[in-house]
């Protein structure tokens, strides 16, 4: 005897024995997919920050590299903002990622401020020399 056990097609009854088809609850499957997507994005943000550190902080980028990076940074911020809105839904099963997403967003936004900082090196040195008379140079 073959019977669909729950009308959803997630389990078969074969001679009275239930056999799982592996895709139990569609809601759970989409929840898992959503959480994998968020984890993937958080990992990509970390990779992006590592590359930023290596290519734009530890060494002086060319104007073209800087412009391309700022474009990429804005894209990363847009996607992360979208994910933040998604997990802010009170019914979202991915709400547990809210803190991590906020943390990465803060870092990406700080990065953009870092590269778009209108203050010149000379102005910064003047401010720091006045604020720290015991030494502000490297």
């Amino acid at each position: 005897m073959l019977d669909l056990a729950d009308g959803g097609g997630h389990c078969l009854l074969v001679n009275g024995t239930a056999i799982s088809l592996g895709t139990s609850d569609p809601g759970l499957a989409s929840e898992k997919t959503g959480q994998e997507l968020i984890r993937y994005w958080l990992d990509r943000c970390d990779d992006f920050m590592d590359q930023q550190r290596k290519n734009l902080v530890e060494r002086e980028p060319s104007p073209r590299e800087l412009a391309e990076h700022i474009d990429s940074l804005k894209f990363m911020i847009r996607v992360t903002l979208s994910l933040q809105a998604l997990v802010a839904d009170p019914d979202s099963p991915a709400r547990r990622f809210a803190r991590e997403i906020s943390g990465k967003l803060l870092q990406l936004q700080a990065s953009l401020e870092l590269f778009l900082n209108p203050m010149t090196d000379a102005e910064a040195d003047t401010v720091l020399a006045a604020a720290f008379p015991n030494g502000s140079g490297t």
Partner: protein
Amino acid sequence: MDPELEALLKSYDAFMEARGGSNEGQLFALYQSRLDDVAAARRLGPETLDAAVRKKYPRWIRAGHRPSSLPPKA
């Protein structure tokens, strides 16, 4: 370098170098708190000091400064 400026730069670096998402908010709050304290003590606007520290940050990194650990808040 003035120890308070170095502590600010290390705090900012700890925030920027955090990975995984769990500690970034806390580390940014720590940097902001330090910045506010120093700005108040030096009678500076916190935004001005923040911009100056961020401008200094890449030059400080390129000069080879890496924190061994996050310094405790004074």
